[in-house]
């Protein structure tokens, strides 16, 4: 007896049943993964658009019961979202450009086999992946450099990442050496070669690293807490969201804490709740990632594979 399923032929009944059962299992698990991954966003989205006091009655899972834009309106003002957005975007853009430029320049110089200082320099960079002095030694360095409380504390400390260095250098090494040789014989300087050959040829890997760096910069919040917590004009979007989140966590501790927390969100009483505000903040912080994600996702798999060669 033969049976067909999914365009294939099965010789026995058992193997046919096993195949159908497996397909059903696979479909269920994949569907489960998609739901578990996406539902939290949906849940948060509908809560952010539901009227805050109504949300406390519960039951907002699939669709808002009473539509309201008030959560967004109040957070827009109280958490100073326009400024936070500006700081976050500025931070991500500056970090990405400087990080890419310096890491690629270093990667090119240290990919040159004839460079006399290649070995000690490479060792210093690679070791930095495993050496971490810890939170407070770094904290006092930043303070001694007078970077705390300035915008530059977001940009300067993280300009070189050893992992990105490996990824870019691995890629540059795949560029035929003869190309650089001939340019050098023509009297082209190394910086010129870096600028007009290496950068254009490395575009695919630079796109990947740009994604890693910009997402990392966009998502950071702890440095704001450490170095800029006294400068509201330097608060990033993630930091503002963190403050909202902590506030709603405190609510579960005791109601008195909220009144003493002095958070700006409390100014607008009773029309918003920490939970709804938190939902709106989460959505605002997620949307930019969701917008760029589909455009960039074709790059990161390529980059991960380049990186894993060295791993």
């Amino acid at each position, binding site marked *: 007896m033969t049976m067909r399923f999914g365009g294939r032929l099965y010789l026995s009944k058992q193997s046919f049943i096993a195949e159908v059962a497996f397909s059903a299992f696979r479909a269920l698990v994949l569907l489960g993964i998609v739901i578990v991954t996406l539902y939290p966003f949906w849940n948060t989205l509908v809560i952010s658009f539901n009227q805050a006091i109504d949300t406390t009655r519960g039951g907002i899972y699939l669709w808002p019961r009473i539509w309201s834009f008030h959560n967004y309106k109040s957070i827009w003002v109280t958490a100073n979202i326009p400024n936070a957005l500006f700081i976050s975007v500025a931070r991500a853009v500056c970090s990405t450009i400087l990080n890419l430029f310096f890491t690629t320049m270093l990667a090119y110089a240290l990919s040159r086999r004839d460079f006399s200082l290649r070995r000690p320099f490479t060792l210093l960079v690679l070791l930095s992946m495993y050496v971490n002095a*810890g*939170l407070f030694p770094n904290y006092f360095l930043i303070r001694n450099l007078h970077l705390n409380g300035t915008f530059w504390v977001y940009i300067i400390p993280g300009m070189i990442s050893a992992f990105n260095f490996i990824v870019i250098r691995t890629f540059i090494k795949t560029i035929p050496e003869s190309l650089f040789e001939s340019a050098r014989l023509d009297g082209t300087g190394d910086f010129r070669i870096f600028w007009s050959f290496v950068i254009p040829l490395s575009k695919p890997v630079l796109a990947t690293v740009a994604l890693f760096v910009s997402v990392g910069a966009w998502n950071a919040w702890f440095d704001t807490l450490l170095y800029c917590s006294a400068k509201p004009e330097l608060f990033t979007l993630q930091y503002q969201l963190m403050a909202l989140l902590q506030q709603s966590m405190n609510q579960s501790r005791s109601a008195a804490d909220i009144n003493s927390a002095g958070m700006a969100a409390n100014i607008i009483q009773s029309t918003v709740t920490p939970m709804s505000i938190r939902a709106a903040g989460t959505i605002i912080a997620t949307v930019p990632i969701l917008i760029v994600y589909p455009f960039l996702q074709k790059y990161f798999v390529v980059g991960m594979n380049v990186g894993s060669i060295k*791993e």
Partner: protein
Amino acid sequence: MSTLEINKPLGFWKKLSTQKQLIWMSLPIILYVILFTYVPLTGWTMAFQDFKPSKGFASPWVGWKWFKFLFSDDQFVMVMRNTLAMSFINLIFNFTFAIGLALLLNEVKAKRLKSLAQTISYLPHFLSWVVVAGLVSTILASDGVFNIVLKWLGLMKEPTIWLGKPKAFWWIVGFTNVWKEVGWNTIIYLAAMSAIDPALYEAAEIDGCGRLAKIRHITLPSIKPTIIVLLIMNLGWIMESGFEIQYLLRNGMNADYSQSIDIYVVNYGLRQGNYSLATAGGMFKSLVNIVLLLAANWFSGKLGEEKLV
């Protein structure tokens, strides 16, 4: 011949003097790396002082005082327990779920469906922990969807405030990590699986192997080296249970189970201004990490796998 002249070996300094541009392109960046990575190591002296920011490095020396305090502090012992527990849970969850999902995705032959599933499962990797913590606390709220599902399945009568249950905290962190990283972690396994020779599967089919038999006898043995290397590498990070998610989800009720070593360091340093104790804690962690990394590297060499460092 001009090429001969170029290839003629030069003395170190003479050769270096022809590489001025390369030096300009690398030396400032190397100095930067030294400043931001290696210079802070001098701050470890704080762990042996009664450090006061006003006095700086002229603060009085106290020897091993803070390390002795650390190991006699009940709270530190508790913090170590939490760190190791969450680390192990993360390690085991990450491996089993990622390998499981990779095996499943590998069996999806429809390209469109496979890449859609991958795209969706990678997404959480790009979100900040702040966003993830926001999503988690919405889902786990007392009227959140998690309680509703449990009630609907008949597993629970009364809704629970999950973030207020101390013993649930480790598992919340574990599953949150899986949710965020499982898709991303499959990439490396899928890459290893795509390198398997299809002829092996065809031969197995002719021998009458079913799907499970093929997974057991071909796919899993083929990705074994990848699994071992990743496992050893991760054992070197066992003191890193993560910091952000614990910091963001901890509250008064779960404090005994949510504090990790990093939170202990932040608390003593930022809240109490005891930078010496905080540095001693951080230094202890770094040293254990380095020892574990070297041990893992040595072990990896013993097993005949590629050395990592």
